[in-house]
């Protein structure tokens, strides 16, 4: 029996799961800020965003985290919280074989942006410190180093629903006995490139950043992972409403009035229409993280999962269906039970 025995989150609401849950429970969106940059000709471009508050001093001290970009700091903080001090110590001493799977949509955009700017200006002085941090698997590599783990470590790329595939990989590793526990992490950072990119899809979207982490192991205390069906592929001509319904059906969720639905709606009408239609008649409790926390790209689905786990833990429901419409690749779902 695979259980989610630890959760961690960094969001625009703050560092930690309690801050995120408090924001979600109150429904109060954190304060927007402006991300401003200048074009080459000097005219400014401003984008409203939700940023993660300044980092607390509780971030782990590690040589690996000295020069990293925000995405790795978010990942580290969420992972530390999901593991907890006792398991961190066990991993460090080799008592736990700890696997790491990171799911990314954007990746390390800040350093990629900075490094490419340096390359265009004068490649002969482009920083060798920045470049390795532009590689997609830098955050997950830092996590393995931080926890002294030589077990498998995978970084996977996809749309906003990719974290479900990360969960699936974690189940494979656990069932195969490759690891004693697996950290599934979905971290994202923003810069002007990605924020402006999101708002090309809709001027009402609020780009955000953060990370979510789930710790999975065989047994232990925490909600059970009941099913992760294969994601339903999107693409040309695929009806998104049908894709969402198919994903939910494949997860074997029952809308019995007591099953919690964690969806991926954002408050942007054009984005939300398929989910509004697919789950119009949902009888049980339902919540969305994006209207409060902003659109965290791939991390939002992680926040959905963490919030669903927390609500199961506190007894809000016996089962939860977590469903995400990813954007341009997949509609994905998973079912959790207490």
């Amino acid at each position, binding site marked *: 029996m695979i259980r989610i025995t630890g959760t961690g989150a960094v969001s625009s609401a703050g560092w930690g799961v309690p801050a995120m849950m408090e924001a979600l429970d109150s429904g109060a969106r954190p304060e927007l800020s402006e991300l401003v940059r200048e*074009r080459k000709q000097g*005219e400014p471009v401003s984008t409203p965003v939700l940023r993660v508050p300044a980092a607390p001093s509780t971030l782990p001290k590690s040589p*690996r985290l000295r020069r990293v970009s925000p995405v790795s700091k978010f990942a580290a903080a969420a992972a530390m919280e999901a593991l907890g001090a006792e398991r961190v110590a066990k991993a460090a001493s080799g008592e736990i074989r700890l696997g*790491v799977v990171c799911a*990314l949509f954007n990746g390390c955009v800040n350093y*990629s*942006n900075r*490094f*490419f*700017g340096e*390359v*265009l200006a*004068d*490649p*002969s002085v*482009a*920083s*060798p410190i920045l*470049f*390795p941090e*532009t*590689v*997609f*698997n*830098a955050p*997950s*590599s830092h996590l*393995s*180093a931080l926890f002294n783990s*030589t*077990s*498998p*470590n*995978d*970084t*996977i*790329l*996809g749309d906003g629903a990719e974290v479900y*595939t990360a969960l*699936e*990989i974690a189940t*494979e590793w656990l*069932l*195969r006995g490759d690891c004693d526990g697996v950290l599934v992490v979905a971290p994202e950072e923003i810069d*002007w*490139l990605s924020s*402006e*990119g999101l708002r*090309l*899809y809709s001027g009402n979207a609020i780009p955000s950043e953060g990370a979510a982490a789930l710790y999975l192991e065989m047994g232990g205390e925490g909600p059970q*992972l*009941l*099913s*992760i*069906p*294969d994601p339903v*592929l999107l*693409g040309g001509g695929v009806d998104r409403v049908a894709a969402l319904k198919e994903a939910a059906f494949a997860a074997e969720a029952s809308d019995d009035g007591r099953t919690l639905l964690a969806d991926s709606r954002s408050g942007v009408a054009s984005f939300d229409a398929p989910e509004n239609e697919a789950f119009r008649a949902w009888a049980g409790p339902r919540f969305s993280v994006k209207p409060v926390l902003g659109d965290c790209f791939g991390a939002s689905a992680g926040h959905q999962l963490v919030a669903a786990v927390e609500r199961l833990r506190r007894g809000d429901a016996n089962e939860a269906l977590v469903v995400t419409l990813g954007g*341009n*690749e997949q509609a994905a779902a998973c079912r959790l039970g207490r």
Partner: protein
Amino acid sequence: MAFRADQPPVSALRPVAITGAGILTPMGADLAENSAGFRAGRTAFRPVDLFDVSRQRVGTAGQVDLPNSAPGVSRKAWQRMDRGSRMAWLAAREALDAAGLSGGEMPVVIGTSAAAMPVGERYYLQAIEGKSKRGQLTRVETYQPQFQMMEMMRALGVRGPLRIVSNACASGANAIGHAFQMVSEGKAERVLAGGYDALCQLVFAGFDSLQALSPSGIPRPFDAARDGLALGEGAGFVVVESLEAAKARRANIFARVLSYAAATDIHHLTQPHPEGDAALTTMEKATRAAGLEPEQIDYINSHGTGTPLNDVAEARAISRWAGDAVSKIKVSSTKSAIGHLLGGAGSVESVICLLALRDQFLPASLNVREIDPVVEFDLVQQPREAVVNTVLTNSFGFGGANATLIFQKEVLS
């Protein structure tokens, strides 16, 4: 169902075969051209003209001649794919054809490191230069790796769950490893798996900034005076299939996949542990899982980048792994001929291993003038005809991703 709590545990692992392979490298556009090139000991480096290299320390790489169109792919579909995806399509098409498959339902596992970075570069340039957002939404959409791979799958006529692994330079090997595990555990009957990467300015400049590129442009893996790697581009794909399904449809069997192992080197973000600890782990795990002893491996296609630190670490790992048998272990690095294909390296080198099995030869480590004293194995410096039944390939990446795959001729399995 990918996972369900009540699914029965895997009772027995199924034998796994490779029924199709395809390759596109600076050496050539298909299996035949690559086999001929590696058997002749050719190299394939040239000046890079895809982007401005005039201010870089190095101006050459293994650049591919890419056709402007592909048979059976509409002009519109070809244009939606970026350079890397086109390479992936060509190699994947060859792999499917070799497997006797036109397309169909199957999971797809892809390894890439840079993905569609050139598209991201164009988006960035437009954003900083212009006031116009014209074309930017298309660039944002087509920059995304999953968009590119979905386009490629559509153009191949393949439909199934997509998994994109991005573990830097081990990605391609990880992709084949994931596919092997899916098939051996009964999650899929067949999987299309491979890796690709195209040359792009950001990555080229990145390796140059690290001073990892050989100033001469000539990589010399395992040479005492080696001074860096050369970059290349390309793609390698395989069809990974259960042996039972392959035999049932009388498919051509290139080889059996015996094992896959992965581990993480936590020594440093960009430097391997000096003793090659993680490489030793994956080689030991892979040979143990395959039920083999090191002396039963006829050939190792090493990661062998040609950088000072990588080659020492890998050579030490091979010595520790092989023990007394080390002098009999034949090793080469085909990066000496085509360069380092980054996310594509592991899958391309896997396909080169399949060519070695099929055509019974050992590709060479070229450009070696004096072998580094740390090398205790038999470094293959010229292509050789040889009896090759079992091969091992290593792939290591930034961030400490380490992977090993073992393939064997079907007749022995």
